Structures are given as structure tokens and as C-alpha cells.
């Protein structure tokens, strides 16, 4: 028997519940209006370049990157800019958004809409990075870190490996899996383009072992690319964390406070690879993405190709409508996602899934006192002590938290998931991280 690779310590294995597995990616009808937030990525918000009343086309730049760590934003529809005003998004706060009324379906002329596979890429590394930045590509795994920044290897560091995260370790979500089944060639071309951009000749793709069809398909397809290797990984959450993935694939440990590039790696999501392919080979900006809409009581769990800015209510409608006893709507996966407070929030570049939890599953467990069972410490993939971090955060001992490496926490939620006393450890740890980050910023 082959021993599957994985990270050595911690992790949990929640029920997979991949209800929308194997469902073809459906295209959503054109919405009536879209609400496109100007802050859909990590870093500075983009700066709107359109005004109220302007006519825009699909793929037209509507907000320009607001700094190096920032991303361009393009219109996902053609129509008229109704207004630019704060609107509720998945953050739970009102943030500046561009609201466009849809009229017709007109594309920017330079976008190649055909399905033909373009394998050859004649651009050099800098041109690729520039194209990726122009087309507003961000990490589609959920963290939405601008891709061109990740692909720019800082001076003094060298990249040896490009690691592609095709793990999709979150339960319920199947968006990446389905994309891999439908667009394998495009994804592989996207991978080799990114490898060219950072100047590495080794690409490692990690796929969790619960997707045997994808592993088989990719192993077949990768033969024609001589630098791409496919690895099946053990099913364990959070296998898709970049540090866990690197540890599993090439057995290197990212130092505390460091980045993957410190061990010679650049990690990109498989969805990002497809977006890079479309941006570089087809000139298509990132204005739509695959979203899984699912849940225990959902009539028709689906994988949808949704335009950025579409209200999630339209996605839910296509999945058979909101089930009656829905207790929570979660944006993202069940482990790291966040509940939203209305159905009008828009799909953004970071929306990987919409989960509709029935009341029974939506309730938080009753909180008891810590029984010192140390399960949270056992499951923490980052070798932290969640119970200690929670207590320090609760007592506002921010400096102590820094010593306990709270900033290494990847917020995977394994501790809260496993706690038999129902203590929401991660909520407190996040609070500690936010406060500590504020203190660190004020030191500068």
C-alpha cells in the first residue's frame, strides 16, 4: 500500500458532505443589477475609474489597483453605472461598491471567448506578471491575495517549486473539483505559465485522495507537460493550508512568521491557475468564478459559474431556493466560512461557496468550562496551544500572545471544531490576532 503524504501533526477529519460532487458547472443567467465591491482582495481597496451614468462593457476596468498589494476590478456585466456607494458585503459592513444596471451583453473586444485551448505562451516572465496584474487576478482559494504579488519573488529569495493547491479540504465545497474535471488542460497550461513567471521548472500539484477521478485525469494529462507532478494526499483538514501543503509535498517547514518563499515555494490555488490561463491566453479579466451552492436541505446542490457582483439570492434560487428551516447562510466553507446576514450580499472574487445550514446544524454548541483535555493542542496543525491563546486574548495580554506565536495561527478552526466543551476558541484567537496586529502597526 502506498502511504499517502500529509502534514505530520494536527488536523481533523470532518464529514465530507460533498453533495454537489460531479454536478456540471452551470452558467448563471445575467442578473438585473450587480454590486461590485471595490475591496475584494487583501490589501488596499481599488480606486473607481468610472462615474455614475457611465456605460461599461463586460471586462472593462472599473476600479484601478490602489497600490502594489491591491488588484484591478473589472465589470462583470455590460450596462450603466447606477451609483457608487457603500453597500453591504460579506464582511458584514458596508463598503464602497459600484452598482451597475445590466443592459445587453457586450464584451470588451480583446477578450477571446472561444473554447479553443491555447497552449503556447510567447510572453516573458515580466509580461505575464503584468498581464496577471492588469486582469485583476487574485488567489481564488478564499484569501484573495493578489496573484501578481505572490508571483513576484522578492530579491534575495529564490523559488524552486510552484505548489498548486488542488486539495479543496473544506467539507461541502466542490467548486475546485468540478473545475478540475472540466478544464484540466487549461489548468495545466495556467500552471506552466505561472511556473514561467516565477522561473521555476518544477510544479507540484497536490490533490486530496477523495478525488480519485481528478487524480487519474491529471496524471494522464500531466504526461505531456514534463515538469508537472501530481500527488495524491491524505484526506485531512486543513491539508489545503499552504504551510501544511508544503510540509506534505516537499517536507519543508515554513519558519514562524515566514512565507512559503522562505523555503523556496510559491503556492497557488487550482482555481487561480485557471484564472491565470484565461487572463494570459484569452485576455479575460477575473469577473466570474465557480461557486458551490449546497447544504443538507438544499433541493439541488450545484456548482455555478457566477459573475462577480451577483446577489447570492440568485444563486440560491438556482439551487432550488432557500430551504424553509435555514438557520444560517455561510459564505465560504463550513470550517473557515463566515455567516452572512442577508441574501443580497454579492458574489466576490473570494466566494468559493454558499452554504445553507438548517437550524439544527446552524446552532452553536452550548459553551461549558474548559476541561483541559488538550484536544485543541493535539489538532492544531501549527503547533500552537489554542486554549492558552484564548485565555491570553480574553485577558487582553497582547504581548504575551505575541510570544506564544498567535500570528502563526492560520484560523483553520480545527480547535473550535474539536473542543468537547464547545468553546469558540478561534473567535477569541482572531480577536487577539487583530489586536496584536494593531499594536505591531503602531510600533512602526
Amino acid at each position: 500500500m502506498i502511504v499517502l503524504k500529509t502534514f505530520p501533526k494536527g488536523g481533523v477529519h470532518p464529514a465530507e458532505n460533498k453533495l454537489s460532487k460531479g454536478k456540471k458547472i452551470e452558467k448563471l443567467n445575467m442578473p438585473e443589477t450587480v454590486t461590485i465591491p471595490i475591496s475584494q482582495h487583501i490589501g488596499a481597496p481599488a480606486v473607481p475609474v468610472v462615474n455614475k451614468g457611465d456605460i461599461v462593457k463586460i471586462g472593462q476596468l472599473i476600479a484601478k489597483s490602489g497600490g502594489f498589494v491591491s488588484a484591478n476590478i473589472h465589470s462583470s456585466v455590460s450596462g450603466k453605472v447606477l451609483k457608487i456607494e457603500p453597500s453591504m458585503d460579506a464582511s458584514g459592513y458596508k463598503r464602497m461598491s459600484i452598482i451597475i444596471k445590466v443592459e445587453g451583453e457586450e464584451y470588451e473586444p480583446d477578450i477571446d471567448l472561444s473554447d479553443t485551448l491555447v497552449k503556447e505562451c510567447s510572453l516573458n516572465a515580466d509580461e505575464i506578471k503584468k498581464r496577471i496584474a492588469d486582469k485583476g487576478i487574485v488567489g481564488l482559494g478564499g484569501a484573495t491575495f493578489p496573484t501578481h504579488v505572490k508571483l513576484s519573488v522578492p530579491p534575495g529569495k529564490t523559488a524552486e517549486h510552484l505548489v498548486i493547491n488542488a486539495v479543496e479540504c473544506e467539507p461541502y465545497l466542490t467548486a475546485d473539483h468540478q473545475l478540475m474535471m472540466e478544464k484540466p488542460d487549461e489548468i495545466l497550461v495556467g500552471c506552466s505559465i505561472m511556473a514561467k513567471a516565477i522561473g521555476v521548472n518544477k510544479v507540484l500539484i497536490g490533490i486530496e485522495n477523495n478525488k480519485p477521478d481528478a487524480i487519474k485525469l491529471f496524471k494522464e494529462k500531466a504526461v505531456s507537460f514534463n515538469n508537472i507532478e501530481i500527488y495524491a494526499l491524505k484526506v485531512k483538514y486543513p491539508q489545503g493550508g499552504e504551510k501544511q501543503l508544503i510540509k506534505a509535498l516537499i517536507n519543508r517547514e515554513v519558519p514562524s512568521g515566514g512565507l512559503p518563499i522562505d523555503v523556496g515555494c510559491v503556492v497557488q490555488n487550482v482555481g487561480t491557475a485557471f484564472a491565470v490561463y484565461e487572463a494570459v491566453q484569452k485576455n479575460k479579466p477575473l469577473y466570474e468564478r465557480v461557486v458551490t451552492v449546497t447544504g443538507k436541505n438544499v433541493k439541488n446542490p450545484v456548482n455555478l459559474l457566477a459573475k462577480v457582483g451577483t446577489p447570492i439570492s440568485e444563486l440560491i434560487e438556482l439551487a432550488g431556493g432557500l430551504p424553509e428551516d435555514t438557520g444560517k447562510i455561510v459564505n465560504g466553507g463550513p470550517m473557515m466560512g463566515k455567516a452572512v446576514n442577508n441574501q443580497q450580499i454579492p458574489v466576490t472574487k473570494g466566494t468559493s461557496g454558499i452554504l445553507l445550514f438548517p437550524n439544527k446544524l446552524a446552532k452553536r454548541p452550548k459553551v461549558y468550562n474548559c476541561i483541559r483535555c488538550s484536544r485543541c493542542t493535539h489538532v492544531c496543525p501549527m503547533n500552537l496551544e489554542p486554549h492558552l491563546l484564548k485565555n491570553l486574548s480574553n485577558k487582553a495580554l497582547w504581548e504575551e500572545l505575541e510570544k506564544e506565536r498567535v500570528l502563526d495561527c492560520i484560523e483553520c478552526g480545527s480547535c473550535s471544531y474539536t473542543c468537547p466543551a464547545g468553546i469558540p476558541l478561534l473567535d477569541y484567537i482572531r480577536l487577539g490576532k487583530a489586536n496584536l496586529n494593531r499594536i505591531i502597526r503602531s510600533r512602526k
Partner: protein
Amino acid sequence: MEIVLYTLISLSSLGIILAVILFFVAQQFKVVEDPRIDEVEALLPGANCGGCGYPGCRGFADACVKADSLDGLFCPAGGNETMNAVAKALGMAAVEKEPQIAVVRCAGAPEQRAKTSIYDGPQSCAIAAALYGGDTDCPYGCLGLGDCVEACTFDAIYIDENTGLPVVSEEKCTACGACVTACPKDIIELRNKGKKSRRIYVSCVNKDKGGPAKKACNVACIGCGKCVKECPFDAITLENFLAYIDYEKCKLCRKCVEVCPTGAIIELNFPPRKPKPEKKEENADNEKAENNAAADTVIENTSEPKNE
């Protein structure tokens, strides 16, 4: 017998030798501490609330003794009385400061501000605020989970059961500012206590345009600017659709309170107005105010106007 003798001699000589060593060491490493620090510390309230910005009362006493003047040094818990005593002890000029009090600038009780979602996470404002805008449509308003109550060392703030909003006790509040720091929504502000504890302030921090603000909460400031025009002392400024009354400039004429269409401007501890033959609504309000005044002659209830 001999054993006892030897023991006594050896132990006593050891004691004497060690005493001599200790004496010289103590001489060598003597820490000279200004005796005035103890003196000043004795004058301070000893609550160690941190309202002065120093770590505890001794830290503040130390700072006072070392400082050339008492400028910028103030003990909010002790107030002017304490500071005068400190100034006298140190032979410096006292810096008088208007007494202040914490003011909660949100009046969004459940009947004014409908709940739109249910929050079931940890009962902490800071955690809830990190997750989303809150369980109502107003993302600026009070979350009511009591981080301010937790932060107060003087037991001067509590959550009103009916309104779900914090209420500051007029007598107990020392304006140390712990609640101001604790509030993740920046709702609580330190304002001058005012003559006879009379205060006027805008009880709202909603920076949305009038429409969404009013939709989310009946008593929101909609940024109409009526109060700005009405104010004869230029004490009111309007920024981001939100009025703010400068307590240094405000002369407590109450004209702004009358013109505010949503009732977002609150007056505290004023005697009831003389009834005016104006709109019916206002009369009803006045009657209510009068009833309140009749019920307790010493008006000290800060929660009352919020219920209106």
C-alpha cells in the same frame, strides 16, 4: 552543654558576619526614592484605574513628582479636588479641568432599531464587531454585549434590560475612559459634565446618508443639518451626515433639541420646558417630561430620555 555553646557561638558569629556584609551591600546599592512619591500617592484615590494614562496610582505619583509642572497630568477619578491637594503638596500650580463623564452616543433601543439577524457567538462586543456590523441594520450602533461594563472598575456602567443599551451612573463615573477604549464601535465619548450635570449631545454615531440611517433606526442622526443652522453659537458641525456638538462651545440653549426631526439630540437633567402651543407631539413629550420631573425632584436618571 558544650554542643549548645558551640552552636550558639558559631551561629551568632555567622549572623554577625552576614549582618556586616548586608550592611555594606545595602549602603552600596541604596535606592534613593523621593519621599514625596509616597506622599502624593496617599492623596490619590488608589483605584489604579489607569485613567491618567500611567500604570496605576504610584506611576502617576511618580510622574507628578518628576514633572516640572502639572500640565497634562490629571487624575480623572480624583478630579480637581485631588489635583489641588497634589499641587499643594508639591508646591506647584494646579491645572483645573472641567469634570467629565462618559456619554453613550446610541439610543437604538429595540423598538427604534429592529433586529435583522441573530448573533449567537461569544458575548463580547469586540468579537461581534470583528465578525459583522451587528444584529441590526445600523453598522455603527451599540451591540449591547457589555464590553464597557466589563472594562469599568468603578461599577459605573450597566446595560439597561429594557433598552439593551449601556447606562452611565452620574455619581459613580470618574471619566477614566476605560469604557471609551473598550468600545469597538467608538460610541462612548468623554464629555464635560456641565453645570448641574446638564448636557446636550447627539446620541448617534451613524455616518450613513439620511435614508439608510433612518431606515435602520428611528432615532438616528440623518445629517439634515437643521441643528447646525439653528445653533447660535456655531457649536455644531456636520461631517459624514453626522452632527456633532462641541461641548466647549455649547451654551445649553436647547434650540437644536427642538429642531431635530428624529430626536437624535438628547438633553439631560434639564428642568421641564414650559408647554408651548405648538405641535401636538411635542406637547405630549413635554407632559411626559413633566411627569418624570414630578416623580423624582432630583433628576439623575440618564436612561429616561433614551426611552423617549
